[in-house]
């Protein structure tokens, strides 16, 4: 409790009277000083009583309209004060707007003695990302002579997120897949706590493995098998080359893939699975963190994922006959995508033909190409068959050498080689380099490893949007065929990652046309 200026004036009046009493040597004036002092004390006590009753009956609430916003958003925040007890105190209620937020005007309301409730709404801007907690509401009470400041009310928290894709679709052919992450079965017996099966006792089983309850039921010894506990060693391979920059501000391919990669990394930490990360730029590997405990790796990997920016492409785009393209500007995207599409079309046309040509399609892996070339080397020089095919397989050899220089392939190669053992490789990239991706997936699934490919369809991120919806749908169908091609490979799951609204529009357009992706 502190005196206001008026309170100090009254106190000074008492002192002045006391001084006057001394100066004029009249004790009568001193009685006036004592009476003023008594008046002041009576009001001070009254203030204390009123304040106590006010605090007991006061309810102050600051409620933001939304608790999750994006940077730069404006949200209305309402400050409400209600007092049930009737007192002579005037209350000045100040909202505890966080330091990182700015209100358009001072966020204060006054509650006069005769008023029981008041509220005020102000627009608050959130320029800084993070979790911002409101301070407690500051209530200043005064009766004109004294004032006291207390804090009260709840402290809501507002989460401010940086611009990011608002809604990301992850699924297959426009269908969103259900959450599939969690504890996974190892399907191998071993030491664990998850019961796998009950089987009869066999010589060699230790006595402590006998399940006595089952034995009692069956009258012969039974042993309970448990599922072995295993860690799913996860390697995240995230592509952040220039082509991943495609898309509206804050909703690029990279942003979408980053969000999904963060989810996977988060799940990995939750399940305490080992985690590694390799990031790929146009010049090759930009960051590599070998597979290690998620306790150690999660935070650095999360930081690396969040700090990823698309790299700048080399001046000369690299292209190849299989449709691998490297885009260095938005203008070139459509041309190169067309090239990519045409090569895919050729492949499809060829594969739809004779069986032998289909075999050619399957033999496009570097290892197969190498083996086929070796086979041809052993054939007779005059053999027309060998003479005709040898040049093609020689090209495949050069292709094999070139593909190993592709950044994504090289990155996954390093990750898989270093991991030594079964791993789950998650490849986050787009569809602009199908040949490289095929080879990369083939490499990643070697040794029975599981692979998850998260593909950002370029057609859903192009700046032109959905201007020509029919053409967009056709291109989406082509993408879907490529995705299915990957998904058909054993141990490979291929999912599309795109903006929900655009994808829905494309799918809807397809439905109205009677097609099906």
């Amino acid at each position, binding site marked *: 409790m502190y005196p206001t200026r008026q309170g100090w004036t009254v106190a000074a009046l008492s002192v002045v009277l006391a001084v006057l009493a001394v100066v004029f040597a009249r*004790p009568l004036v001193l009685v*006036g000083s004592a*009476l003023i*002092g008594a*008046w002041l004390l*009576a009001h001070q006590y009254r203030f204390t009583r009123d304040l106590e009753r006010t605090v007991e009956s006061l309810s102050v609430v600051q409620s933001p309209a939304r608790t999750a916003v994006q940077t730069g958003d404006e949200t209305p925040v309402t400050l409400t004060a209600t007092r049930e007890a009737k007192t002579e105190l*005037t209350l000045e209620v100040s909202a505890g707007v966080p330091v990182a937020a700015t209100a358009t005007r001072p966020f204060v309301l006054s509650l006069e003695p005769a008023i029981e409730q008041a509220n005020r709404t102000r627009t608050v801007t959130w320029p800084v990302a993070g979790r911002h907690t409101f301070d407690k509401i500051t209530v200043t009470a005064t009766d004109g002579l004294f004032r006291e400041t207390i804090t009260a009310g709840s402290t809501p928290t507002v989460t401010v997120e940086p611009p990011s894709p608002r809604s990301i679709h992850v699924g297959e052919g426009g269908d969103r897949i259900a959450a599939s992450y969690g504890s996974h079965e190892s399907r191998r017996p071993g030491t664990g706590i998850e019961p796998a099966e009950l089987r009869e006792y066999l010589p060699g089983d230790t006595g402590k493995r006998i399940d006595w309850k089952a034995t009692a039921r069956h009258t012969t010894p039974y042993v309970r098998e448990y599922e072995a506990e295993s860690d799913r060693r996860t390697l995240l391979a995230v592509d952040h080359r220039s082509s991943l920059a495609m898309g509206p501000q804050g909703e690029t391919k990279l942003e979408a893939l980053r969000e999904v990669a963060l989810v996977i990394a988060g799940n990995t930490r939750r399940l305490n699975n080992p985690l590694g990360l390799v990031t790929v730029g146009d010049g090759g590997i930009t960051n590599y963190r070998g597979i290690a405990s998620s306790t150690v790796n999660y935070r650095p990997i999360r930081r690396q994922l969040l700090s990823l920016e698309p790299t700048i492409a080399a001046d000369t785009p690299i292209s190849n006959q299989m449709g691998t393209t490297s885009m260095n500007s938005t203008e070139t995207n459509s041309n190169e995508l067309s090239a990519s599409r045409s090569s895919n079309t050729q492949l499809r046309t060829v594969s739809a033909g004779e069986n032998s040509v289909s075999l050619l399609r399957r033999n496009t892996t570097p290892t197969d190409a190498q083996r086929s070339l070796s086979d041809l080397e052993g054939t007779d020089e005059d053999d027309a068959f060998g003479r005709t095919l040898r040049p093609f397989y020689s090209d495949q050899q050069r292709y094999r050498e070139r593909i190993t220089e592709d950044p994504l392939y090289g990155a996954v190669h390093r990750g898989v080689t270093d991991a030594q053992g079964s791993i789950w490789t998650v490849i986050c990239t787009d569809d602009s380099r199908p040949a490289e991706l095929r080879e990369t997936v083939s490499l990643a699934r070697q040794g029975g490893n599981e692979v998850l490919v998260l593909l950002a369809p370029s057609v859903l991120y192009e700046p032109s949007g959905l201007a020509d919806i029919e053409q967009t749908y056709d291109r989406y169908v082509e993408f879907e065929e490529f995705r299915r091609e990957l998904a058909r490979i054993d141990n490979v799951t291929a999912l599309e990652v795109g903006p929900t609204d655009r994808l829905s529009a494309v799918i809807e357009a397809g439905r109205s046309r009677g097609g099906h992706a």
Partner: protein
Amino acid sequence: MSARIDAVPAATGRDWSTLISLAAIVVAFGAVAGPLGALAGIATALVGYLFGIPYALAAGHVALVASFPDGIDPLPFVIVEVTFIAVLLAPVPWTESPGRITLVAITSTLTLAGAAWLIVDSQSLYLAAATVIVLLAIASYGLHRLELVRLGLVPDREDGKQARQNDTDQTDESITDTDTDTTAKPTTEPTTDI
């Protein structure tokens, strides 16, 4: 609604009971000091009406000294002082705790004035004045502490240590959070289900 809080006036005592008590001052002054006293009483009442009770008390006592330059007899003194006390207590019935506030007012008056009276009898007036001021300061500080305790605004020693410890912990956490969230582009876990 947006009045500055400093501008909130203290109770100036313009209710009818205060007006009656101010009128009583006029009557008392007129009774004990004649027409000149009545004028002084009117001036006192006006000051009280316009500026507030404390100013009326101050002006009234100065006027009383002026009206009785050779000293005042006990009876007129008591008559006038009773009206002053009436002015002091006039607004109290309208408060939520009239009994307690009346008790505080009467006790304060008797204590301060009684102390002054006692000391003036035996000591110098200077010491009596100083005593009144010191007693007033002590009583005021006591009420201030009472308010802090009643509202729970003063943590006890152990709580204080605990509170300081909590503050330190929170600071540490906030540093950690800053490290996590600001360096790593603060964002929540994405809600995407895959």
